[in-house]
């Protein structure tokens, strides 16, 4: 790679709110694209209001991580001149549009894929929808927790016999932002060959189904839907979180060799001679008995004690860290995942990717509402 970022020179217009579209364009901005975020006057993106906590009234936590490195312009969609000015800007300057506005809005303002691509056939237009562009639910709004529920993610998450649990981060919203990015980058490569743009469609619901990819294959193979198994991995034992005296440790004794090493490290080599634990299938069958024995031993000492013993024996393991532990861990720091803007106001998490060994930096924080209106759209 040259010293330029891989998307230098690409211009993106984001007609987006909340998480999904802004997360996708944050990825593009961090990889070097110029991203122009279009917001309504006054309150701007809803996400600006989501908090606490906040660095200031303008920059609450959600907004700042999703919008660093972008420019902000305000457009009053009730004003025809302002909408016309935005349309002209897109047609003349943009390579990519990403939008996740409510169903029907872009059509109303003449900013749909058909409208814009008719005037600029090179344009790549990404619609990041809720339930997709067809089907009985195509006009329903979508939210991450509802999509985790109706997309099946909650049915495989949590403990059997307990209420469903939501994945504690927005994997549907952020995942859709990632699919948006995969879609527009693919279209960009194709445009290089053909000169033609393309409409890219992604949606929260399809992303949820995407997370169920191998569960779907399993269901079609067996007719039995997957269940919730707590911290366990279905069919593998022992492979789960165990409670030590100061917290939980995940231990992966996923095959006979590792099980033997683990039993020795825990001081109970005789477990390997127990016919109930002779092979993975029998261990899975007798998992409650196995867990009872392991719990009694592991609860005697803190995580670090067992980690040392398991590491020495070569048995994969990891503590269940909280956020404060994860961000302060030497591994996180060594990777340079935590970045600071040049003005030292914002601490941000970097892209989980490197190009020729370099993680794209984030020298510029999120924009104030309308900070770049004049620069981008003129007077």
């Amino acid at each position, binding site marked *: 790679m040259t010293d330029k970022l891989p998307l230098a020179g690409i211009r993106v217009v984001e007609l987006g709110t909340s998480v999904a579209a802004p997360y996708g364009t944050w990825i593009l901005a961090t990889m070097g694209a110029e991203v122009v975020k279009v917001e309504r006057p006054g309150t701007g993106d809803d996400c600006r209001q989501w908090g*606490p906590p906040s660095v200031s009234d303008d920059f609450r936590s959600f907004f700042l991580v999703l919008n660093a490195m972008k420019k902000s312009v305000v457009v009053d969609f009730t004003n025809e001149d302002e909408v016309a000015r935005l349309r002209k800007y897109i047609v003349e300057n943009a390579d990519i549009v990403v939008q996740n506005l409510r169903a029907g809005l872009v059509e109303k303002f003449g900013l749909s894929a058909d409208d814009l691509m008719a005037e600029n056939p090179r344009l790549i237009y990404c619609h990041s929808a809720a339930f997709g562009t067809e089907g009985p639910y195509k006009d329903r709004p979508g939210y991450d927790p509802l999509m985790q529920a109706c997309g*099946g993610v909650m049915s495989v998450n949590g403990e059997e016999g307990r209420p469903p*649990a939501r994945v504690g981060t927005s994997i549907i919203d952020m995942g859709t932002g990632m699919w948006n990015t995969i879609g527009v980058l693919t279209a960009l490569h194709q445009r290089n060959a053909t000169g033609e743009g393309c*409409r890219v469609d992604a949606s929260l619901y399809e*992303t949820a189904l995407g997370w169920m990819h191998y569960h779907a294959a399993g269901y079609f193979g067996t007719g039995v839907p997957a269940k919730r198994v707590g911290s366990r991995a279905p069919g593998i034992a022992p492979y789960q979180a165990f409670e030590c005296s100061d917290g939980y440790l995940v231990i992966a004794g996923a095959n006979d060799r590792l099980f033997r090493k683990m039993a020795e490290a825990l001081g109970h080599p005789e477990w390997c001679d127990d016919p109930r634990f002779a092979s993975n299938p029998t261990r899975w069958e007798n998992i409650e008995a196995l867990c009872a024995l392991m719990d009694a031993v592991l609860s005697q000492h803190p995580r670090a004690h067992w980690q040392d013993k398991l590491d020495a024996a070569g048995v*994969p393991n990891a503590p269940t860290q909280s956020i404060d532990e994860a961000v302060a861990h030497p591994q996180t720091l*060594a990777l340079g995942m935590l970045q600071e803007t040049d003005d030292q106001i914002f601490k941000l998490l970097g892209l989980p990717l490197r190009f020729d060994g370099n993680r794209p930096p984030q020298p510029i924080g999120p924009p104030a509402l309308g900070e770049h209106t004049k620069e981008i759209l003129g007077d």
Partner: protein
Amino acid sequence: MATAQPLAGLRVIEIGASVAAPYGAWILAELGAEVIKVERPGKGDDARHWGPPFWQDMAAMFLAINRHKKSITVDMRDDAERARLRTLILKTADVVIQNMRPGKVEALGLGAEALRAEKPSLIYCNMGAFGKQGPFRDRPGYDPLMQAFGGLMSVTGEAGRPPVRVGTSIMDMGTGMWAAIGILSALRERDGTGAGTTVDASLYETSIGWMTTHIAKFGIDGAVPGRHGSGVAGIVPYQAYECADGFLVVAAGNDALFAALAGVLDLPHLTEDARFKGNPDRVENVDALNALIVPVFRTQPRAHWQDKLDAAGIPCGPTQSTAEVLDHPQTRALGIVQENPVGGPALSGLPLSFGGVRPELTRGGPAIGEHNDEIFGDPRLET
């Protein structure tokens, strides 16, 4: 655009096993790239054996993330076979994607530096466990360990209960998505300059990436986020409620929606109760509120409440099982479940469409070494 094969003509060599690298390469295969999977003779990729269920000796999980690929076998201990793979890459490949254990590809002479020195246009993607630097750089990584170590388990599940693992491999699959994003960006650059790039992604970086909003909050106020079961922090009522036949997630995120919910449940006094006046009050008195709401939801099935909540404009959705999701009219309308023309189970497609067309399912997974003759018989390799 008329085609849903936007990466047609691109050749990708996958030196990968298990989930992360195969899933990343699967995305590229769905987009039209020719993906050649390198497997060891005999057993091949471990994931072939991760069943039941099996179809033609392929576990369902393997089939799901290896369809549309070609398979060649290479015995890495055999100098001549390794040299042949090296020649294949140097003469014909655009992209290499690998997730062997740390140091392995370099030891085999197939690392990024060695190959790109001879072929500067090559895009080479390493998918590691804990990343390239740091005290853990040589440790192996597995999806559940990364869910624990990166902090995700600390925010998933119910407070006061044991940790739960997210029931799908979001570290492995997420890393596959990041690899695809990195490779496609590098491709865009190569289209302009002709130069390739080394892309590095890892399970641990992906796991930290999933925590971005939590980490931002923590960085500002220093409060360690907890676990909220089916709910989200700071909004009440916003969780799964048990109905007569299963759970329904109800999202009454503001005062107007809460008033509407009180109407639907026929509990009008809720809106007059000072404990439930504004969202902060409801957050503080969530147990008292749920004590009143929970018994009402239990009296009727999900469809009953969903109709009423829909009519009142309150966002809601049932917690569907895999079976219910796949059978839902919305899923069917989108055409994301694809029948396999060569038989075997139906499979879910890419959650993306191009020009309104989703990439089709045309071929299942390859048998081990099925394409050895085709790929290694290429006359370009002789010159």
